[in-house]
């Protein structure tokens, strides 16, 4: 079968059909890594590009990501058996004092769509939790979201704690959210700021290469 069909159905958010097609591809003996790359991830890539260009919006990304997860669940045991590992590992969360999680969830989905493994720490996450998770779970990236000008200062704390823990040479720190800017990222010594979820996933994938 053509794996591009999986990509098309994923872009349209058809979870059931994606799941059925992934199963069919497995049954045809196509390697799981190929189904993942050329079917699911290829589809999410296109969704990400369209999101950047304002052609699709949050709800479409959400349904596409749901469809991707349905397919990915079937592939997981096979990928493990093939010895395929994720392209990289990220821990993500919304900064302490802040309860917004929609933007953060969107970034997580986009990153998963790049084949990255994402540890979601939720909202109201302390700087220590970010840093300890990165150490314990061997993450290459810490990704922080803030939606309030009054809580974004917590991001500077994350950078400081990462320095103090001596992991700054191994772990990249990415930040984002409505009040955050490129200049702020520079000011606090974070590695990267992106203005939207798709760009964040691109940047994370580049760091993990």
């Amino acid at each position: 079968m053509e794996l591009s069909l999986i990509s098309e159905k994923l872009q349209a958010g058809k979870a059931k059909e994606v799941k059925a097609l992934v199963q069919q591809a497995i049954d045809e003996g196509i390697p799981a890594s190929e189904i993942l790359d050329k079917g699911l991830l290829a589809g999410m890539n296109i969704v990400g590009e369209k999101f950047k260009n304002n052609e699709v919006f949050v709800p479409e990304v959400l349904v596409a990501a749901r469809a991707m997860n349905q397919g990915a669940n079937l592939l997981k045991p096979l990928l493990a058996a093939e010895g395929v590992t994720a392209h990289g590992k990220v821990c993500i969360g919304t900064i302490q004092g802040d309860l917004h999680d929609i933007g953060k969830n969107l970034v997580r989905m986009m990153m998963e769509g790049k084949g990255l493994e994402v540890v979601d720490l939720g909202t109201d996450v302390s700087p220590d939790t970010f840093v300890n998770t990165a150490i314990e779970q061997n993450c290459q990236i810490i990704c922080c979201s803030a939606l309030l000008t009054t809580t974004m200062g917590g991001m500077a704390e994350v950078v400081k704690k990462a320095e103090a823990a001596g992991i700054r040479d191994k772990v990249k720190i990415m930040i984002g959210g409505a009040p955050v800017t490129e200049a702020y990222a520079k000011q606090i010594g974070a590695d990267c700021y992106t203005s939207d979820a798709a760009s964040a996933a691109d940047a994370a994938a580049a760091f993990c290469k």
Partner: protein
Amino acid sequence: MAILKVHKGKITQNIKFEGRMKLSDLLLQNGLSTIHPCGGRGVCGKCRVEITGSVSAPNALEQKAGCRLSCQAEITGDCEVILPEDRQDMMIETGSGQAETVQSSGISSGKIGAAVDIGTTTMALKLYDLQSFAELASAAMLNPQGSVAADVMGRIGASMGGKRDLLRQQVTGAIEALLQEACEKAEIAANTVTKMVVTGNTTMLYLLTGRDPEALSHAPFEADCLFDETIDLFGIPSYLPPCAHAFVGADITCAILVSHLCRGNETAALCDIGTNGEMALWKDGRLYVASTAAGPAFEGAGITMGSGSVTGAINGVSIVNGKPHVSVIGNTEAQSLCGSGLLDAIAVGLALEEIDETGAMEEDEFPLGGAVSLFPKDVRAVQLAKAAIAAGLETLLDSAGIKPKDVSSFDLAGGFGSNLNLRSAAAIGLLPEELVACTTVLGNAALSGAAQLLLHKEATARAREIAKNAVHVPLGGNPKFNERYMDNMLFPEQE
């Protein structure tokens, strides 16, 4: 020592300064502020200025905006700047919709009071004769704290970052100026004003009283003061009504006083649509309140050609001969798009199939009239803003176990709610159809409620009841709200 020469309209002023300074900071220090809807982050492009002389090279944000921004440009030596003229034609809601007021009889008893509403964006004051209840004069202006930050969170941050005194001086100075203006209009001496009621959201009252707003700055957002106290403002005893919550303030308590809520068995809801959307519901003797951040899209910030309600702004769009037809404030050439025009533009775009229900646009640009167009990113900003309000209302109703059809009265408070086209609000899914059908427009209900407190002793007890009994429904971090927020980002199916 260097000199900054400032031109504003017909006035020229020289400001001395030393070293390297951000232009907006120097202007603010000298009482010459530019507007910063994005809080000086260089992303909204509204503080554009023309500048020549010793100034930093345009940074990335200025290059993106295609102009110099006073919040980004740094001056290092002698230079000259041209500031846009103040918009004296800004329309600010002081009206009270259908609430009862007594018209001035022209005779004053000599006992005068003032009701004041400190809005995050605009401020308004009304003078009343305390014996005849006659309304004597009114005055309105932009909240000068807007020069520090446009939204409450920005101001809370600024207050904690050392601007607490500045913010307090700005707002007290503005109240004094409004009082002066209204007294002049009413031809009375300012010292005959013997009492005031000053309402506003919780943050505004914190900033007015110079309280540390730290408790309002982070989750769990629990205010350490809910007011219901009388303070001294330039010698006038001034009552600050009670707030229900950190983000459901005295302005909502006041609005509820003049609404259909808290009266008998009728199920009634109220919504004040602004940068923060506040909402309340009265059902079976219980009062539920909630708030949600909608962002400043409805005030024109973050919208490509967005603006406030100023001359030249499109404030309405309809369909004539299958094409968009605009109405413009001041009947001039269309130059920008204000909140009500933005809502109409999207409703028209949906009806003409220029925009589909997912918010995708057929073309890269939807021309409305004059040089004004709607762009894809503008539609996305409105989707986020309207989804927050719609999801908030749904979640609030759901917490009382009801649907929009069960509400018998819906009251819209605030400036934006007074000017929007209700049919467009329903067409884009900002408000459910069932609520639009039973809507009453209250105008500046916070100000009307403050006037009630000023004129009627028994209103104070009612205000206390309202604030005390209000059940706060948290929306932040609420999974039900998040789900509805996603669902409501889509536009309704077009008929």
